[in-house]
């Protein structure tokens, strides 16, 4: 998936997050009040009820059996209250228990006054034990609560990780993050994505201005990391975080954490951080996986292409080599030499097989160029040798034409891959022979211009229209006017121009008009040789 697509998806996501409405806000508000009440009033009432219950039981027991360990019974409400509702309830239970014991069971009865010093010590001892116990029990309760919430959190994260594991691509992953943030954690999260060159793409009005500015700052600075920002208007804290800049471009996520910064928002920020980190790790894995898959596909394609090229090269060119070789032997057999008809037939086979071999070579070249590009092996070469080699290559094709040479004597050397340039020049000769009448002149010339050597082939053939000139050099181009008359795949000129371009040169076509001939030129870069050094090297 491209970065651009990912960016688009991120932008789409912004619309899908749940937004708060007023009703929901009210429900949340009243729930908090209930929490406060539940945290104080109800436990105290319940605690007092328990102490009352303990007192009644003691009175009943005392009626039948005189009971001395009264204080011990009052420990029960303390432990229960402290473990159930916390330290406040525990303390209330302890004092209420002490008061009840004093009032109902220590003489003088039904008064808070104590007669016996022993009883004072007893009650104080009870109070001390009760307070310590309630403290311990309350702490135990807090830990249990923390443990439970941690367990829940871990459970959610586990579910999230499992969700990540099933993600097959970056798109799934983005949805998993969105789902977790909005549905499991119930935070309002806005994903903003923008590349460094594509700033100001904050098209979602739900993000407060202050937050936008902060995100913009992060993007502008190219920063990595997160910051918590308080929106002064709504007094709510937002976490603004850059997500995986190396993968998604500069994507920024803004998560609404809640009220003013504090311990709670810090904890939430931590959670969001953890989850984004985890998502990014998965995203990296996915990226690696996707890259490996792509590489595998490329590799297979390449093997297939190589096999095809190798196969075609061997399976087609080997029989052709036999045919061409056999023709060359036939041509020398006395029986054929003395028989003009047989000779003409052998010539025909030879020409056609040669043509076929050329076409196959063009196809192979085109496939190689498309697959691997051209990698020229540069070597300083005499342009005269390039012309000679190209002429030898096309000797048979040019036999019906009158070939003239106009070669400058002291033309500079060119630093090129001579094989490639020879093939390109050969192609120009081939075209000249193909598109000009037999017996007409084909003129090959070389000349030196400022910083390049120009090799040109001029024919007196069908020429080019302005339209054809524009299309020349395109892959598989063949002039419509010639297509009927001459054979060929049309790859030749494209290959020639590719080969010349790989050597730092260029291919040009000039024609005064249709049927007025064409001049095709190769321009090859050259560099002036160091004359003094050269003289030294050549002197005896």
């Amino acid at each position, binding site marked *: 998936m491209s970065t651009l697509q990912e960016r688009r998806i991120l932008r789409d996501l912004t619309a899908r997050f749940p937004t708060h409405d007023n009703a929901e806000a009210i429900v949340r508000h009243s729930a908090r009040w209930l929490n406060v009440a539940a945290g104080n009033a109800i436990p105290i009432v319940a605690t007092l009820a328990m102490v009352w219950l303990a007192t009644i039981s003691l009175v009943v027991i005392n009626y039948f059996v005189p009971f001395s360990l009264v204080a011990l019974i009052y420990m029960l409400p303390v432990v229960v209250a402290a473990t159930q509702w916390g330290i406040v309830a525990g303390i209330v239970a302890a004092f209420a228990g002490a008061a009840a014991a004093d009032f109902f069971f220590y003489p003088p009865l039904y008064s808070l006054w104590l007669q016996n010093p022993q009883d004072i010590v007893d009650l104080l001892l009870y109070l001390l034990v009760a307070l310590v116990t309630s403290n311990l029990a309350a702490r135990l309760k807090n830990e249990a609560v923390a443990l439970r919430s941690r367990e829940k959190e871990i459970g959610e994260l586990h579910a999230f990780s499992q969700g990540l594991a099933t993600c097959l691509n970056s798109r799934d992953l983005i949805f998993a993050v969105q789902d977790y943030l909005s549905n499991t954690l119930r935070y309002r999260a806005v994903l903003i994505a923008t590349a460094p060159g594509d700033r100001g793409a904050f098209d979602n009005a739900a993000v407060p201005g202050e937050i936008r500015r902060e995100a913009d700052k992060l993007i502008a600075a190219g920063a990595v990391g997160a910051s918590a920002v308080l929106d002064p208007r709504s007094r709510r804290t937002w976490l603004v975080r850059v997500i995986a800049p190396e993968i998604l471009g500069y994507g920024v996520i803004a998560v609404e954490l809640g009220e003013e910064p504090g311990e709670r928002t810090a904890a939430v920020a931590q959670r969001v951080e953890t989850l984004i980190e985890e998502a990014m790790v998965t995203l990296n894995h996915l990226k690696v996986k996707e890259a490996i898959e792509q590489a595998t596909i490329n590799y297979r394609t390449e093997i297939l292409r190589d096999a095809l090229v190798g196969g075609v090269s061997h399976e087609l060119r*080997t029989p052709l080599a036999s045919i061409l070789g056999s023709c060359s032997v036939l041509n020398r057999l006395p029986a054929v030499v003395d028989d003009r008809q047989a000779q003409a037939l052998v010539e025909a086979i030879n020409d056609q097989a040669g043509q076929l071999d050329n076409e196959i070579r063009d196809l192979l070249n085109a496939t190689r160029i498309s697959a691997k590009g051209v990698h020229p092996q540069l*070597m300083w070469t*005499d342009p*005269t040798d390039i012309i000679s080699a190209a002429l030898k290559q096309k000797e048979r094709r040019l036999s019906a034409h009158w070939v003239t040479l106009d070669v400058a*004597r002291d033309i500079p050397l060119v630093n090129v891959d001579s094989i490639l340039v020879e093939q390109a020049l050969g192609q120009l000769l081939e075209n000249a022979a193909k598109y000009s009448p037999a017996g007409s002149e084909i003129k090959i010339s070389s000349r030196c211009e400022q910083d390049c050597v120009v090799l040109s082939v001029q024919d007196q053939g069908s020429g080019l229209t302005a339209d054809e000139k524009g299309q020349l050099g395109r892959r598989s181009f063949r002039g419509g006017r010639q297509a009927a008359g001459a054979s060929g795949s049309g790859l030749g000129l494209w290959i020639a121009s590719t080969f010349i371009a790989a050597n730092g040169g260029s291919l040009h076509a000039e024609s005064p008009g249709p049927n007025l001939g064409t001049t095709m030129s190769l321009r090859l870069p050259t560099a002036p040789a160091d004359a003094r050094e050269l003289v030294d090297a050549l002197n005896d």
Partner: protein
Amino acid sequence: MTKVLVIDDEAQIRRFLRAGFELHGFTVIEAENAAVGLKTATMSALDLIILDLNLPDLEGSEVLERIRSWSNIPIIVLSIHADEHEKVRLLRLGADDYVVKPFGISELLARCDAALRRQLRSTNRDPVVKAGPLAIDLVSRAVTLNGKRVQLTRKEYALLHGLAAHVGLVVTHQQLIKEIWGGHASNIQYLRILVRKLRQKIERNATRPELIVSESGVGYRLNQGETGAVPGGRGVPSNNHYA
């Protein structure tokens, strides 16, 4: 009769080579793989080996190295690829020359002729090398063109000598540079310019060379032109003439 061993796994190629060689008075022995080829090369008295590089059982270059380890018999390599580095490598391994498929029988015969002639010269100790109108006496260092003496500088002669010693066969750029400039580091640009100067003295038309021809990316070849017969073979005319 010149005995030639053809090592090639393609039956059709062997068939036309046999026809071509027999037409020119050679005796042909065929081998369809490297194993048979190597065995035949050790068992029979041969004059020449034609070796295809693409063999089913062993790399052609490996076969070349093995034969070269005991024999200096002329070897011409056949290849379907035209990679210049590979050609230079084969020449360095000891191939006398190469021919790229597809090729005509006359091209191959010309190479064989040159290789056989070189072999013959090393045994005959004939000091005069002839290449068309050009005669080079390797002992007296006299160079004549159509019977007339040609004055060459020392480096021009070194170049011509390097080529004449392997007349008809390709000589690599590196080999020539080494022979002309010795151990001194030199570059191919000097060689190109030197060739150009030499051509101006010996070629009929220096812009259309017929005697010293370039083998792209590999080296140069001194064309032997139309010459006399080699034992068992008829002289093969060079086909490198233009209108």
